[in-house]
């Protein structure tokens, strides 16, 4: 916490920048996390589908053989 009045004045002139800096970081991290999260979720779903389909395939080839 800045208590010195002079320094307070110095910082008050520039701290208007902070919401934008924080916003930029929030966007960056949110973007990356959301993207990776969705990719992982889709990957999981597809993995399950593959398992089911390939099990079905194996069963059918077993029936035929």
């Amino acid at each position, binding site marked *: 916490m800045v208590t010195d009045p002079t320094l307070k004045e*110095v*910082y008050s002139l520039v701290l208007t920048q902070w919401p934008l800096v924080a916003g930029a970081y929030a966007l960056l991290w949110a973007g990356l996390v959301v993207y990776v999260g969705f990719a992982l979720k889709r990957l999981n779903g597809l993995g399950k589908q593959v398992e089911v389909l390939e099990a079905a395939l194996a069963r059918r080839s077993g029936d035929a053989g």
Partner: protein
Amino acid sequence: MKSHTTRAFIALAIGGVLTLAAFLGAFFWAGVPDFGFVRTAERTDSVRYQGPFDQEIDEARYLANFAGYDVEVTAGGETVRGDLVEADETHVTIETADGEVTVSAAEFETGRVRGSSYGRPDWGQKIFYFHVPVAEISFIVFGFAAFYSLRFIMTRKREYDTKARVSMEVTLMFVMLTMATGILWTKAAWGVWWDWEPRLTTYFIMTLLVVAYFVLRNSVEDEERRAMYAAVFSILGFIDAPISFFITRLIPSNHPVIERGGLEPPMLISFIIAQIGMIALGYAIYQLRMGEMLLKDRIESAKTQLER
């Protein structure tokens, strides 16, 4: 496939740790550079103290912003020194040891203002540690997309088309992130959300090229044709991007550049760690999407076999 997901997770872990480290380095280790200066009447112990300032003033109205400062005014042959109470285009009022003295602006001859000068911290610069690496990765991945497109044209193998498309998706992701952080920084540093400034303009053109790639892909039905058209367009786009980058030199630029040897070690190290971390994250996203593509292929082939 397994190998893609494993690689993706390893890269994700490395990228996550490095970017987190870079984040900590950027905010708690690297200093905040000065962006101009601020003047105050009093002196305080501060790392930002740049020294005293002592300025000549030739008109009374120029003193208007210096209330509380130590001033010395010569008017009508007499010199008065003390703390400035107020000043405008008609008069100057000064608090001296003997009480307040008012001098009219018409009699004003010369004046001096004394105070302290402090560096003005530039918090907006903190975007640099992530904005610049993300922008660099977008160029690199665009290059990979063009390379895979070229490989596709030479070999006509479907895997290269998939690789080019996934690279382009990663490019789009990073381009969007660069745009978003860049626009916020522009507001912080220049006071406007957007400026038709060379770097911004060319980056915007590059964004449009990447978007156009996907528009093109989505509007071609035949699969082989889609792959070929997309490959040709991404190569053309990759040739065009540097041309538009350089031609914009016709307009003078405001965008900051890093001066040679201009970064202190804590800043430089945080920056380099952020760069490596971002490369790892880009690679992780690429591998994740590739794994997804391969799984989709497996599902397709399993479905066609089941239908038979």
